């Protein structure tokens, strides 16, 4: 199946979500118009693509590649402006501290509006034949975010929000519109989190999983006979053992992630002194060649 219009990237902290978002944006932009958007204010995918967004706005980083910062606060503002007809009142409203507390007491509203923005952006992307790549928050926060549609929809039994909630659920469960790409390192904790996330998305939320990215896995070329010499090779032997151990951890991760019936893409560990635009470009080439197999 073709990729969904919106590819939402999530995973445990430190598994390379932003790196994958940047590389995927790059890869897709070779053929389609692409927006890479950040929704947790760090805008690190944008930074990896060479733009400092400072939490707001958008910028072009290539002919078909745009980066964008989305913020729940901005969504709330535009929602209020939409439903409160008088600009003067809505502005005043948003400025008052009181309102801040009230929205804090209406949990989920900002998240809900954020999802609605994503739905609209995905529709735009579909119209242009392009894609939207979201550098999402860590898995726990992502699952919370995605479940907000159902939660708030159930609370609002009629009215605008109820209608929006139903549309949102339709969007999130439409495999052509929305899909989640999970990142993991070879480390056991992140593999476990990836598998749990994948299972919740599928069983509880009926959300399409695009696949899992095993990030930074490494292999080695030492033979068994060579590895047995490690003890005699001092510090260099220990470094060799470390590499072999990393390879074994990667192998276990491959087995567990591959056995879960999800598309598995590997992005190899880049043994480079820096991780910049050049490396992102390299990863995007790996992604481009493997995406076709998903």
């Amino acid at each position, binding site marked *: 199946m073709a990729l969904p219009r919106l590819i939402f990237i999530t995973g445990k*902290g430190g598994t390379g979500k932003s790196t994958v978002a940047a590389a995927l944006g790059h890869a897709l932009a070779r053929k389609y118009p692409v927006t890479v958007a950040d929704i947790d204010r760090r805008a690190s995918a944008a930074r990896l693509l060479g733009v400092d967004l400072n939490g707001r706005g958008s910028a072009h980083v290539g002919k078909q590649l745009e980066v964008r910062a989305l913020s729940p606060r901005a969504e709330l503002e535009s929602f209020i402006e939409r439903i409160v007809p008088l600009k003067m009142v809505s502005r005043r409203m948003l400025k008052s501290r009181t309102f801040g507390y009230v929205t804090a007491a209406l949990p989920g509203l900002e998240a809900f509006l954020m999802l609605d923005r994503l739905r609209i952006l995905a529709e735009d992307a579909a119209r242009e034949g392009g894609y939207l790549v979201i550098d999402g928050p860590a898995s726990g926060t992502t699952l919370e975010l995605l479940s907000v549609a159902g939660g708030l929809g159930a609370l609002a039994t009629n009215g605008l929000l109820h209608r929006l909630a139903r549309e949102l659920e339709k969007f999130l469960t439409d495999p052509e519109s929305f899909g989640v790409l999970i990142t993991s390192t070879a480390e056991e904790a992140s593999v476990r989190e990836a598998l749990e996330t994948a299972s919740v998305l599928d069983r509880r939320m009926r959300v399409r999983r695009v696949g899992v990215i095993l990030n930074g896995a490494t292999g080695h070329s030492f033979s068994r006979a060579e590895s047995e010499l490690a003890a005699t090779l001092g510090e260099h032997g220990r470094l060799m053992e470390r590499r072999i151990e990393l390879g074994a951890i990667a192998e276990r991760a491959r087995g567990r992630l591959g056995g879960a019936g999800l598309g598995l893409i590997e992005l190899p560990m880049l043994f480079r002194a820096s991780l910049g635009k050049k490396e992102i470009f390299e990863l995007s080439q790996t992604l481009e060649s493997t995406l076709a197999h998903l």
Partner: protein
Amino acid sequence: MKSALSLGKYRLVVCLGAGGVGKTTVAAALALGGALGGRAVDVMTVDPAPRLLDALGLAPDTAEPCEVELNGLRRKPGARLRALKLDPKTTFDSLVMRYAPSAAARDAVLENRIYRNLSQALTGVSDYMAMEKLLELHADRSTDLIVLDTPPARHAIDFLDAPRRILELLNSRAAALLGASSGFLGQSVKLVDLAARGVLKAFDRLTGLGLLTDVQGFVRGFEGMYQGFAERAERAQGLLRDPRCLIVVVTTAEAERTAETRGFLDSLRAIGLKADALIVNRTLPEMPSLSALAKLKMAPALKRKLRRNWDDFAALKSREAESMNALRAMMPHRANLIAVPDLGREPSRLVDLAAIARYLTGVDVGGNSASAAR
């Protein structure tokens, strides 16, 4: 800059940091280090990995302090370690039960739609509940050191700031407007508040949420509990600002994390607190010298492979060094910078934690896990 922490004069250690840096592990290791040094320690973890629970010998639902078996580790007399896992919902429930002025008020809150469906998502609830648990632990006189892991934070100081934010919410004019009538009476009504109330009503009508009544019920339900909540929030705030509280920021030496760590340090400063230590978790081992490799006798093919392996790790090490420099440059005055080398595996046994504790506290606590774990 010292290279290890001395926990001696502290009664509370708070571990802050971005998700995925090993904050919970560091908290557990610090607690173990303190305990083996002869103190009675409680450590509260948030969302620990199953392996870490195994290491501590805990069941997955240990919401109350549970004694950790320290057998096989060298320890001073008086050593005691208890660990628990934060359960925000249960803590919140018990808080409501304790402070509700009547059974009716208690049930009104516990059965409120907002409370039941969304109280966990309410900004800051898990942070606030961690604070609440801290006060509970602090009240136990048998404990002389508490180590707190904190919930994963979107914003650096969510946790430290939670008591203030909850207080503000409870004291706010919004609460008054929404139905906490007793607080409202004493305050003058401003035009913007009236406008706000009108707009909120319109908002509710348009959205069909019908939540406003529930929010009112929620806020009103807490009437009579404010006093107790406020006092506790105040006390928690006091503990954090006490000179016997050690604030530790945990990070890894990766470019992405150093940017976040800078954010943490800045926001700490903004609320008048300072990190006492920066702990860089999972650093790479020191690189062996190439001349040592040249002297080793082996097949040329193996030597070439070892050289390539060295090159690979050296590249990672220099990437790490760059991040370490960035971290060093942002260190607060007189704070400790401590690097904890990667064990090469996930800590799954108490000796692994002891090995980490050794780096953190500089004291040999008998956890030479490199050999013990093999």
